[in-house]
């Protein structure tokens, strides 16, 4: 199948598909980061994660509309406000859900899965009722539209670069927070030994709530970034949930670095295959490969050997 293309064509294809893959990688990474915190650190399966992401997307949509009609002068900068708002909205909803639902189910992970699935159905219907069943898109400010011509066969869209930059910033922020801050130390302490963490004066319930809220908030930012590359509908979140879980599991649930590496390899494989095969075949092959590898190596790519 490669024979029909010249060498320059091929290298351009790889670069462009690679870049398309990088945008996919950014969205995957942002979604998976939130999930890696919630699943990896807390062991909670949040099936409504996609809906938290979509909440962020809808917040961005609302912001875009609000700035357009009321503050057109500030429109070029609305995206930053929207992302902050998406983080706050999804994070706050996440903390509410933790308080009302998740905290009762920490010892029953499979039941958490069912309950959060129920939550995701409710949120989907709520979005449908509030925003309508049709997919909505956001208006991008002028500076994000267009692309940079690198060579005469390679051009790179600006919004894609922006999404990647956001991803880099958030990832660095999360890494700092989890490994360099007092809060991160508390989260890890609670993960490793809950009774002991409680005994040394860490408010474990508060840490749980904040951790869950943080994971959901990052999903909100992912949703916000997502609006730049796709349109948003009530069930858009559900489309990504399986991929995201696979990324987290594939990367080795407790490892942030693993999550990033796994998001990278999965998104690159998928988008490169997509060029040569149909989209669905590319997806099937990618997912099959991941599931196959997980069957052989269930602990994921990056894990520590620990004493059971």
């Amino acid at each position: 199948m490669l024979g029909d293309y010249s060498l320059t064509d091929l290298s351009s294809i790889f670069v462009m598909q690679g870049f398309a893959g990088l945008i996919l990688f950014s969205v995957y990474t942002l979604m998976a980061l939130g999930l890696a915190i919630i699943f990896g650190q807390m062991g909670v399966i949040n099936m409504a994660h996609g809906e938290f992401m979509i909440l962020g997307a809808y917040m961005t949509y609302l912001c875009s509309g609000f700035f357009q009609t009321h503050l057109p002068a500030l429109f070029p900068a609305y995206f930053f406000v929207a992302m902050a708002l998406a983080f706050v909205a999804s994070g706050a909803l996440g903390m509410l859900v933790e308080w009302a639902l998740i905290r009762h189910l920490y010892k029953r992970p499979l039941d958490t899965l069912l309950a959060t699935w129920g939550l995701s159905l409710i949120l989907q219907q709520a979005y449908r009722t509030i925003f309508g069943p049709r997919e909505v898109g956001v208006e991008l400010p002028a500076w994000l539209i267009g692309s940079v011509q690198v060579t005469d066969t390679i051009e790179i869209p600006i919004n894609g670069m922006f999404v990647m930059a956001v991803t880099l910033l958030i990832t660095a922020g999360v890494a700092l927070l989890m490994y360099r801050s007092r809060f991160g130390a508390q989260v890890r302490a609670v993960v490793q030994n809950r009774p002991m963490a409680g005994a040394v004066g860490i408010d474990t319930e508060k840490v749980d709530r904040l951790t869950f809220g943080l994971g959901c908030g990052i999903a909100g930012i992912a949703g916000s970034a997502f609006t730049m590359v796709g349109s948003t509908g009530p069930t858009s979140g559900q489309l990504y949930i399986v991929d995201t879980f696979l990324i987290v599991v594939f990367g080795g649930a407790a490892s942030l670095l693993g999550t990033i590496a796994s998001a990278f390899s999965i998104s690159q494989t998928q988008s490169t295959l997509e060029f040569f095969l149909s989209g669905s075949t590319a997806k099937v092959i990618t997912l099959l490969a991941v599931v196959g590898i997980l069957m052989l190596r269930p602990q994921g790519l990056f894990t520590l050997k620990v004493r059971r």
Partner: protein
Amino acid sequence: MNAAILPSHIIGADPAEKNFLLAVEALTVSFDGFKAVNDVSFYVDPNEIRVIIGPNGAGKTTVLDLICGRTKASAGSIKYKGQELTKLSESAIVLAGVGRKFQTPSIYDDLTVFENLEISYPRGRSVFGALTFKRDAQVRDRIEEVASMIFLKDQLLERAEFLSHGQKQWLEIGMLLIQDPELLMLDEPVAGMSVGERVKTAELLNEIIKGRSVLVIEHDMKFVEDIAHRVTVLHQGKVLSEGSMERVKNDPKVIEVYLGH
């Protein structure tokens, strides 16, 4: 006071010459570079009661985990009746005749005492065998016999969840008995028991050890003195001392790290 004695001196004869029930040689396991068990060797005779003592984190439980296949060894060998165990699956090790009791009582809360014992009955262990397993008179009699040994014959129909801590420990011992292993490994069988329960347990252990070898981890020195034929002291993953209780008790190294002054 005795001088420090290496294990090989105590054994005296060359290991290869004697028929040990269990021969652990140069056993090592490391978790991320940390050697929880480091070059441990010891030998258990048929019908011997061996107690492993040592401070917390000495690797006692890990040694049992290694023998029963719960943890895979990084190096070294474990020979049971001449058969290498490190390559076998857990269930194959059980079928070879090694039984293991866990530190915290490990029983099935949702089943009755009778059913708990029944599951350990050594018949119908394949899927098909379990599907067609018949609760015949032989099974019932054996279960009732064991139940009276472990002081639970009046609780046969009770759900295990409702037993006291001590009764749960006995139930687990009973589950091992029904399995009838040649090598019985007990991890702190009297921990968390009342004085009365402890006496009854010692009695029970003395009863069940007949005709088999037992490997026990215990902290209760009184209890150890009562039952041990020989004692192995582990410290930081290594064998610190080995021999009769009398000898180990007077070993200055043991006194320093474990028994205190």
